[in-house]
């Protein structure tokens, strides 16, 4: 900076040189910044108008009594106090946690297993991969019909199988003890294809030479999986865990379509509770408070996962 200023001072006395006629570094930088801002402005505008502003508005609403009709009234942290004393909120949070505990590891393990099974160079493999992906692109309404064909207590396939083995029929979605495991099973069936594709990409990025070298050294199939495959896809596994955890905490559509939170609240997840408060019971302030607590929970969980990943994720 001092050098540039010095040169400019000298040039002022001796007349302009060719170098002086070029825009200074500062000006060039300013010009580039203006271009950068210009190019980024549509996205920035989008970010401010459709993400930042609604987020801030929601934060404000969370501290108000807002029924969507009359103006919001500021009530400080009353909504949060109410939430911590709301047995139903805690129950829905418990339901969500139970759903997550069943769903996240099952889907991750199954997706990895399928990816390994389908990571073969055999004829027709693309067809199998596509078949597992079909539920991912199906809507929850369609999936609900399929699930009913399986879990309907009177006509469903699941009870026919139980009957075949001489076991008593179950009320899969009507029994409070079975509803969450059943929902988790359906969610895994619907979502496993997507995570399988992520794992497939991860598996195909592991250099073949590592396996060849291990084989030459006499490593068993299990040891190749344990010491090459698992570390090789640890980055993908981490991504799958983060995505699946966030997805679980935000689950709404499935329970809305399949059980509406029933039987008598046994499958009411937190986002469904939030939806009811906001859009059925005119309590947008309270719903916003729940949304923010949920956001903090998702953030905390993700940060914990990021912290822990240093111990087991290897980016080759």
């Amino acid at each position, binding site marked *: 900076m001092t050098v540039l200023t010095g040169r400019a001072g000298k040039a002022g006395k001796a007349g302009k040189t060719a170098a002086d006629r070029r825009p200074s570094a500062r000006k060039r930088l300013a010009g580039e910044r203006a271009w950068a801002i210009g190019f980024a402005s549509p996205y920035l505008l989008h970010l401010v108008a459709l993400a930042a502003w609604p987020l801030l508005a929601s934060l404000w609403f969370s501290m108000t009594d807002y029924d*969507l009709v*009359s103006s919001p009234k500021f009530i400080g942290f009353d909504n949060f106090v109410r939430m911590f004393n709301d047995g139903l909120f805690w129950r829905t949070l418990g339901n969500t946690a139970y759903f997550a505990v069943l769903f996240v590891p099952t889907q991750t393990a199954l997706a990895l297993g399928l990816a390994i099974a389908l990571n073969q160079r055999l004829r027709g493999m693309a067809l199998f991969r596509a078949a597992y992906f079909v539920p991912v692109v199906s809507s929850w309404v369609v999936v609900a019909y399929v699930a*009913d064909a399986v879990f309907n207590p009177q006509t469903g396939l699941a009870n026919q199988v139980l009957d075949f083995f001489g076991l008593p029929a179950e*009320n899969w979605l*009507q*029994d409070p003890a079975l509803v969450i495991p059943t929902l988790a099973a359906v969610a895994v069936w619907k979502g496993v294809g997507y995570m399988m594709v992520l794992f497939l990409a991860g598996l195909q990025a592991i250099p073949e030479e590592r396996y060849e070298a291990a084989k030459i050294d006499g490593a068993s199939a299990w040891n190749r999986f344990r010491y090459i495959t698992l570390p090789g896809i640890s980055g993908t596994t981490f991504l799958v865990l983060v995505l699946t955890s966030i997805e679980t905490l935000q689950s709404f559509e499935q329970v809305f379509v399949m059980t509406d939170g029933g039987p008598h609240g046994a499958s009411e997840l937190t986002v469904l509770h939030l939806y009811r408060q906001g859009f*059925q*019971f005119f309590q947008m302030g309270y719903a916003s408070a729940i949304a923010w607590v949920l956001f903090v929970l998702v953030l905390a969980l993700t940060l914990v996962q990021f912290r822990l990943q240093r111990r087991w994720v290897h980016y080759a």
Partner: protein
Amino acid sequence: MRVRMLAAAAVAVLTVGGTAACGGSADDSGAVTLKLGFYAAAGDPADTTMRELVKEFTAANPSIKVELEVAPYVKFFERLRTQIAGGQAPQVWLSDGVLVQEFAARGALADLTDRVKTVNADDYSGIELNRDAKGRIYGFPQGAQTPVLFYNKKLFADAKVAEPTADWTYDDLAAAAKKLTTDTNGDGKPDTYGFRAYSPGFTESWWPIIKAFGGDIVTDGNRKVVVDSQQSKAALDWMLGAMGKDGFAPDYATTEGLGKGVVHTLFATGRVAMSYGIYARSLPATTAGVDFGVAPMPKGPAGRGNVAIVNSWVVNKTASAAQADAAWKWITFFSGEGPQRKWAELGEAIPINKKVASTALPADRHAFLDSLDAATDLGVNAVWSEYTEALSKRINEALSGATPVDTALTAGQKDAQEVIDRFYAGQTQ
């Protein structure tokens, strides 16, 4: 220069905004645009009939232009709430009767008390069911629903059981239902049940039964929950017996396992020989070709427990004077004999015009009219959706056998009262 440009832009924005806001008001020629909302599924005959009636109305009132906003029930009310928040709601809309006070208590509806005084209240059913605790009326009836006892004549004849009469008691109902319950394929499960006791729609299930047994749900202007009583317990025990030891009604899990909305087709498909049903249930039964009759609900220790819901036209509080006048004109038009007769042809609701109702309903359907005359409201208040959901959850726990009846009633009363108290605490209205 920059300041001037900003001012010009602000004026332009305000002008556009102002024009948009005034879009529905009367112009110099006296013409007014009225946004009218109602709920109907796509392709529903009710949608077609409503559009025809709107055409008739605008032909008779050329200075009123009607813009329709139609959506299926859930979508309609979901959108309505956000439309109200954004100042974009229709000026007049058809409200589910149980939601009128919810919108009114939050200041979204115009008070129609004075306008209602201009009509002869004796000519219409259900006006009083819309009156709130302070005597104000925010909705004018559009169509009424009240549960009666539907029975399948063929199943009664096959089982050689005498058809229900107005003198029936709950014991008579149970005795007939047992005889009508049959297991034709011998798998140990009835193929036809005598009666459908449980329904997620409590209007046709535990609500009237509790009242018939002498219990009540809410009192004191619908602000005090009183469901936790021995009478309510007796009612729920009767239902549990019907679904359990007596075995003449499908149990909770079987009914819920049918899927959303399927419970309402149990009668139409012949799975049950008797069922409580509102007037709208006539349509699927008729369409399915069921030869059915209707009778008053049986007498319990405290009467029949008749209840009614009056779906109503409501007017947006933010409507201009001209729009509110036009909205009221529409409401009185729809309540007239011609439109009511046309609407009655759908078989969807009991006409609220008494003259039309007495002639449009066949003589053997007059149990609906008697029930409507005797009915009380469904405990409507500003938090109806929320407190009834809290209560239903607990009562359904009892009806599914997951919780003892006593415990469920105590918890249900507490949960529902908390919801009501939270809203009304410190409120003057």
